[in-house]
């Protein structure tokens, strides 16, 4: 079979699968919550723009982190599968054209998403730099060039088999990217832009040169595609069970102390899911991220009712992302073999989610403190929410 043909088939299958699952995602009332959240964040953002001081440090730091995340997330869609490392090895040379097509496709996609983010952040950059509106073009161009450079770097790393050389190129490109964003935000838009052009030029020369050699690093190709697909399905798994729910697990020994606080070793299901919660980075990582982001937004916001709304929405998101724990319990064959009752699963999940949400409820209440009654109102609303979510929503959704 011709390789390009094979990949055409795979592309079709990939999008059909995604489409099938996305139907479930967009049918869920979770999307409505997300839209309200976007609206609330947008509202806070536009209010904030009017009050921000040009020499403020915090917005620069947040913007710096945000843009670095935009540049560094996403990769190249290769659709390489693990078995290709065995079956396609003899077709090494024929993979080249397919991969270039993948690169172009991924470039278009990532430039589009980076453009959206640069466009949204442009007003803040203008205020911080006290520049004219035309300067936003320079900002957007800088972000797009940086994103392109990063995508080229990922493509290039598929061809590198030597760890030292790769680390060198990666370190250089990454530090260049950091300094570009740093210069742009803290010093001058123009200098950042010129730096990004220089980086692009150097990287382009280097990669054009290396592209002539056609030995692919299969292990990396397979690994990066697996990670990319899993990241997508991790989100979809929140809504509907898919067969791609493989998550990264980390030992994180220092957390054992917390696990012992959470679990009193009385019941089997609790024992398991409290360990899953801490060690599966998709659960604990997302929990920490949502709690921190929520707390930051609450700290910046001063309207009481908006605070309540934002707090409740984040609590909902946190609770919601923990529901797939049930899928995990259902999927594990052992829970079918153990001599235990099935109903304990939901009880264990209720116990874990209520503990986790209570911690967030208190943190959010502290974050929204601004002198008045805000904290107490937010806390009361949060506690009511935890009760409702755990007592009524979970059994209805999982039962």
């Amino acid at each position, binding site marked *: 079979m011709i390789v390009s043909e094979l990949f055409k088939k795979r592309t079709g299958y990939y999008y059909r699968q995604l489409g099938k699952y996305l139907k479930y995602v967009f049918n869920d009332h979770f999307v409505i919550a997300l839209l309200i959240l976007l609206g609330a964040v947008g509202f806070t953002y536009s209010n904030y723009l009017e009050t921000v001081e040009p020499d403020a440090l915090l917005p620069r730091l947040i913007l710096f982190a945000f843009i670095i995340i935009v540049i560094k997330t996403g990769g190249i869609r290769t659709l390489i599968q693990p078995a290709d490392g065995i079956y396609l090895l003899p077709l090494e040379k024929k993979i080249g054209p397919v991969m270039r097509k993948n690169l172009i496709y991924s470039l278009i996609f990532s430039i589009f998403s980076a453009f959206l983010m640069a466009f949204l952040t442009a007003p803040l950059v203008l205020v911080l730099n006290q520049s004219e509106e035309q300067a936003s073009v320079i900002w957007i161009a800088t972000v797009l060039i940086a994103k392109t450079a990063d995508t080229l770097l990922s493509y290039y790393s598929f061809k590198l088999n030597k760890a030292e050389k790769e680390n060198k190129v990666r370190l250089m490109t990454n530090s260049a990217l950091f300094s570009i964003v740093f210069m742009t935000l803290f010093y001058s838009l123009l200098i950042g832009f010129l730096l990004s052009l220089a980086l692009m030029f150097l990287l382009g020369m280097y990669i054009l040169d290396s592209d002539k050699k056609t030995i692919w690093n299969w292990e990396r190709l397979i690994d990066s595609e697996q990670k990319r697909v899993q990241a997508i399905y991790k989100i979809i798994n929140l809504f509907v069970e898919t067969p791609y729910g493989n998550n990264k697990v980390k030992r994180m020994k220092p957390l054992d102390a917390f696990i012992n606080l959470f679990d009193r070793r009385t019941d089997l299901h609790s024992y398991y899911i409290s*360990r899953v919660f801490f060690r*599966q980075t998709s659960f604990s990582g997302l929990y920490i991220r949502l709690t921190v982001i929520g707390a930051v937004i609450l700290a910046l916001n001063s309207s009481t009712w908006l605070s309540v709304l934002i707090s409740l929405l984040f609590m909902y998101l946190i609770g919601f992302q923990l529901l797939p724990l049930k899928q995990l319990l259902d999927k594990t064959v*052992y829970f*079918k073999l153990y*001599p235990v009752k099935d109903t304990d699963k939901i009880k264990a999940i209720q116990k874990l989610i209520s503990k986790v949400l209570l911690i967030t409820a208190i943190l959010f209440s502290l974050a929204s403190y601004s002198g008045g009654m805000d904290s107490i109102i937010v806390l009361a609303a949060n506690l009511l929410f935890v009760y409702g979510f755990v007592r009524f929503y979970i059994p209805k959704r999982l039962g």
Partner: protein
Amino acid sequence: MSLNVQSLTGGYTRIPVLKNISFNINDGELIGLIGLNGAGKSTTIKHIMGLLNPFEGTIEIDGLTISEQPEEYRRKIGFIPETPLLYEELTLKEHIEMTIMAYDLDSSIAWSKANELLKMFRLTDRLDWFPTDFSKGMKQKVMIVSAFIIDPSLFIIDEPFLGLDPLAIRDLIGLMEERKDDGASLLMSTHVLANAERICDRFIVMHEGQIFAVGTLSDLREHFKMPKASLEEMYSQLADKEGF
């Protein structure tokens, strides 16, 4: 009588894979389940484990059925699966604690058994590791430890020898014989016929979802009219002749 399978017909979908099979295992008996790939060995095991429901027929362990007393029934079985099944998120130590909780074992007795087994398999200093990072043989050892600490009355052991080092194979066989002497029943499915011949009391030869022959080695020799033949010789002769 420990395990009693009566005219079992079953499978995954509506097409039966197993066709009317019956056999039993007595206390203190080790039975070898033998057959080519796809003969129905794993399907039989899944039915006994309660992972599949029989279309017809009954399965009893010490007189209990899974539909009437699921928890008591499950407590009777220790299972060593063909491919090690492990929790990605739990350490070796936590796997043992899970087993203790699930089967409601006495913690100190179970741990002293576990420690002995862990030492035998040289796993003691790996208690805080994730077994999913272990080699195939070491994972298999974790499964063996988990199954043996629950002290079940029926062991179901699916292809136990693959990936184990020679020492571990010797130790596992020793453990199985020890449990057998204590009166437990063991059902072992395997392709390593030389090992099976050495340790099994009786054999069940399966083909295309049916039981082709049952009996001790001498029963089989008589049945196939091949005196002095080894299990392997009989099996390949039989497979050739019958067009397996």
